[in-house]
């Protein structure tokens, strides 16, 4: 087990295309870190550089205090789980899991002990004699994890391991991965494009975009205190709503003027924070759950206005209301018992205690 340090790492391809533009990341021992971002953001490249499958253009990667830039994958003491499992098709499950240990010349008894132990953790003991083609997707994924566990490496690397599974199995395996990590406590770097996976699994989430790290933090911090517009929009489902607005100074307090005439008073405790934006165009952001029917929000700093829903989506535990405002589609979350109908105006309240104000030029949350 070990910590992983990524220092000023750059990955450039031919033609000077930079996939990763100088990122810094410190991963602590036993930590479960998830790299998340849209496709092409450099998350997989980063993982592959840690694995040693891609060369580093510049910068430094250290595992357990040793710089591994020039160390081949097999000597980095890592294990990787691939999206398409990458099981050896001609070997049984047992041989697949034992392969790495056999190459490292472990004694037979030790191999058997480790494989059986991993099989017990993953609940695949009855499958040990089978070939991969006789396994279901979920079982193959377990075997791929078993192959990683038996090695008892310093670091686990997961490259979108659940993307090939159907929705139900994905949720199940997600829990499984978390359970395994709680048992073996190996430092883990996990890549996904699915922000729900990132939120549920991670000790810390690393949000990447265009080859840079937008923000690093625990899931709750990213959710409630995003630092950039990208993180605010990427984390959370349904996504945060954004409206263009103008920050105005008026009678000792700040207020946000929306172009359609709605005026939102900025809570007093945020006046100092947003003072610098007074008189400027900003982006006002609010999550769907903070845009709800007025009866659910009986406290200060609430702004109530009427909207005309276009689409109503009952989800069971909540209902999503979609409407248009200044050319942007806005989503609100209401109680499933509240009557709502498309085309029938209804009052909604914005909880301004949870508002976000973004500088549209820098993309930074103020």
């Amino acid at each position: 087990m070990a910590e992983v340090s990524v220092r000023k790492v750059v990955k450039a391809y031919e033609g000077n295309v930079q996939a990763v533009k100088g990122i810094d990341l410190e991963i602590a021992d036993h930590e479960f870190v998830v790299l998340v971002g849209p496709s092409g953001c450099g998350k997989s490249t980063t993982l592959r550089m840690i694995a040693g499958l891609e060369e580093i253009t510049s910068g430094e990667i250290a595992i357990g205090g040793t710089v591994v830039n020039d160390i081949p994958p097999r000597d980095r003491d890592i294990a990787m789980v691939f999206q398409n499992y990458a099981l050896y098709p001609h070997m049984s499950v047992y041989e697949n899991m034992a392969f790495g240990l056999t190459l490292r010349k472990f004694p037979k008894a030790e191999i058997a002990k480790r494989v059986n132990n991993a099989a017990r953790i993953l609940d695949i003991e009855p499958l040990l004699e089978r070939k991969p083609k006789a396994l279901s997707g979920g079982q193959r994924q377990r075997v791929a994890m078993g192959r990683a566990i038996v090695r008892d490496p310093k670091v686990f690397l997961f490259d979108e391991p659940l993307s090939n599974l159907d929705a139900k199995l994905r949720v199940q395996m997600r829990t499984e991965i978390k359970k395994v990590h709680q048992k073996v406590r190996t430092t883990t770097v996990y890549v996904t494009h699915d922000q729900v996976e990132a939120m549920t699994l991670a000790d810390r989430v690393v949000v990447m975009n265009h080859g840079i790290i937008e923000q690093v933090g625990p899931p709750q911090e990213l959710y409630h205190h995003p630092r950039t517009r990208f993180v605010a929009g990427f984390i959370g489902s349904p996504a945060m709503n954004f409206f263009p607005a103008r920050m105005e100074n008026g009678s000792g307090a700040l207020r946000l003027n929306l172009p359609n005439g709605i005026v939102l008073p900025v809570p007093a405790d945020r006046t100092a924070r947003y003072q610098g934006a007074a008189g400027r165009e900003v982006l006002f952001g609010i999550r769907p759950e903070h845009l709800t029917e007025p009866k659910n929000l009986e406290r200060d700093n609430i702004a109530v206005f009427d909207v005309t829903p276009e689409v109503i989506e009952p989800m069971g535990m909540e209902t999503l209301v979609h409407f248009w405002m200044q050319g942007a589609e806005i989503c609100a979350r209401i109680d499933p018992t509240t009557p709502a109908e498309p085309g029938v105006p209804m009052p909604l309240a914005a909880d301004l205690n949870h508002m976000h104000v973004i500088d549209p030029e820098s993309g930074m949350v103020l």
Partner: protein
Amino acid sequence: MSATTAGEAPKGIYHLAGSLRKERRWALLTAYISLVIAAIIFMAPPFYMFITSLKGSGEIASQIGSPWLVRDPTLENYTAIIFNPLFQRFMFNSIVITLFVVALTMVISILAAFALARMRFFGSQVLATGVFLTYLVPDTLLFIPLYQIVGGLGLLNSIWGLILVYPTLTVPFCTWIMIGYFTSIPKELDEAALIDGASWSQMLLRIFIPVALPGIIAATIFAFTVSWAAFVYPTAFVTTPDQMPLTIGVVSQLVRADTFAWGQIMAGALVAALPPVVIYAFLMDYYIAGLTAGATKG
């Protein structure tokens, strides 16, 4: 719904299904007719060889009745051939040449294909295409310069000369087949092996060769067939009977003075054709089966 059960004429999709069935029948019929014609064209010569091999030389020469029928079947041609020490020598030469050529071909082409398919290096693409292009040069064009080379090495009129030149026919195509197979193996498989601690040679021996076995068998069959059936090179490079393989031995040595021993030539050719038939029959399933199933999703 009622359209299917009641007496009304079927409509919509049912009508279409009927015409589909008709189209399918026509397609099958056309396929069968063309296949039967092709089978007759390809089977007629071996069948004629077989018929002739069962005839005595008198019957062959007599030209009475249909040549497609045997009136007085005899195995004398086969016994004569099989116990002929010269024929045994040809058989031995063919076997030795083929074993060496197949082994040499597979070692070279597997290593070459692995390097060309997996180790990205400068010029690997050009090399891969170049390997295939060399296959397009016919042996009838190559035997003149090759004669100089083999002669320079002092290997003319020797089976070792043949063992040296046959791979020029087999290696390019086998390499091409193997490149195709190795390329179809998912990249993650070698990455997993690299992380598991395999070296390049371990990756080749323990992952690539077992997974690409159908391709290796296909390439082996090709190398075997080419080597066993080669005609131009032995005709050009070998002059004495003791160094001849079956292909030229049978036609050049079973002629006594001006008389062709047709019965024996046919029997010899059939016996010579037997090993490839046996090998095809046994390895066909492997040839077709895909071992990559289950490696990745799907």
